[in-house]
């Protein structure tokens, strides 16, 4: 069973994602901040990380660089309520990004592709 780590300071998001993704057959662990994130990943060895960008105490884009430094092979999906973060160059260190939504169709699709190790398929315009 593939293990997914959700990093988000909004409890309702953690609950929603956990329930839905567990129903899909994934093992899910969650954390509400970036404190000790690298140690948590070291210990739990998730197959995928879903990372919120704007958290009260941490910048998800900075956490993303730490993950890439120590675990470059673990796929990371960035989540945000806004699409404006794509303007920050640091976001290209993510495998995929999704804008938060109650409809998890896009997130599910990105999880599947990330776990298959596929490169981002979005074609250029």
């Amino acid at each position, binding site marked *: 069973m593939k293990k997914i780590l959700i990093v988000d300071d909004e409890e309702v998001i953690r609950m929603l994602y956990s329930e839905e993704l567990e129903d899909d057959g994934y093992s899910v662990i969650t954390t509400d901040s970036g404190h000790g994130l690298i140690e948590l990943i070291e210990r739990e060895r998730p197959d995928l990380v879903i990372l919120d960008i704007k958290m009260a105490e941490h910048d998800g884009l900075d956490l993303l*660089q730490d993950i890439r430094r120590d675990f*470059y092979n673990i796929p990371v999906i960035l989540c945000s309520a806004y699409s404006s973060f794509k303007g920050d160059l640091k976001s290209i260190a993510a495998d995929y990004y999704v804008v938060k939504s109650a409809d998890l169709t896009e997130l599910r699709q990105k999880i599947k592709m990330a776990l298959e190790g596929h490169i981002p398929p979005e074609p250029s315009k």
Partner: protein
Amino acid sequence: MDVVENPHDVQSADIVVGIPSYNEAKLISYPAEKASEGLVKYFGNKNSVIINCDNHSTDGTREAFMSTSTEVAKMYISTSPGVKGKGNNFKNLFQKSCELGAQAIVVVDADLKSITPRWIKNLGEPLFDDFEFVAPLYVRHQHDGTITNNIAYPMTRSLYGRRVRQPIGGDFGFSGELAEVYLKQEDWSNAVAEFGIDIWMTTTAMCHNKAICQSYMGRPKVHKPKDPGEALGPMFTQVVGTIFDMMVRNGPFWNEVRWSKPTAIYGFGLGEIEMPPAVDVNVERLYDKLQAGFVEYQRTWKDVLSPNVFKKLSEVIALPLAGFEFPANLWAEILIDFAVAYKNCVDSRPGLLNNLIPLYFGRTCSFVIESESMTIQQAEELIEDQCGVFESSKPYLLDRWMETS
């Protein structure tokens, strides 16, 4: 190293800035000044030194460097008279940096016109945050760096699974530990001793699973750009030869890699982007060189390329310049076929690489035509698409590589 000039008697350093050179007397003072400013401003609490690692220049490079007014101590080291090559300069730098006990080494080209003190910060600071190799990320005109765009970036990305946009950028940061790894490597070829050094350093860092990041420089790289059809020089064969050599050596590593992964980014948000100067490329000349190459080399091409690839290439050759297109998937398969041939023909490798040059001109011609009216961002997307094509061609590479093993 043959010559060492160390007037400040520097015996140890936390951070070293190296400037490799050969006959750069006119330009070397500028990067030396900016390096000093960067070291003072951002690494003021560390022992630092700027080292000019030279090829025994005869134009006064040594005097120009040593007389540059800097707050930071300077040192001059050189190869023996007659020993040339950027890689040989780097080897001296690796050795000297290890002797000094440096934790971090930053290298910048001697002909840089756009370097700022922040470049030293951005290339050096990640090395004090557990990264071991820092590659530059700068905005370049789409027609500058055609070997990078059409060979070095897509090849390293598809082979080793790490997305490093400027694997032969020339400006890097690396840890003292990685310098020791470099010194211990046994695959030091003539090409690595020259322009093959950049891709060799990047690939070696990848194959040793070092923590890699890309650092956004904030300004375009402005140096001495060249029209690829006019002045290719030995750089092509040295870079491509090194890529192929490392494919042969690191087969067990890249055989296991399927898709690439993004790399950490150091720096800051995009902000306002300074556009690089345009680079003019003569597409007619590139096209003519492809056609002339077909006349001269078609027998070899037929031997090297698989029948289907040669057939597709023949169709491309028959296209007129108006409407000319050399598809990325054909280019990826051609490079793969040449890499396989390179592996198998140990005796005639230099000649084989020369046979590839007209095909590179053909692909470059097509890329220039396709990206002519694009913005730099659109051209970047085109390059990313090409990388996707290279990664999708990996099964073809594995099949071809295995069938001849």
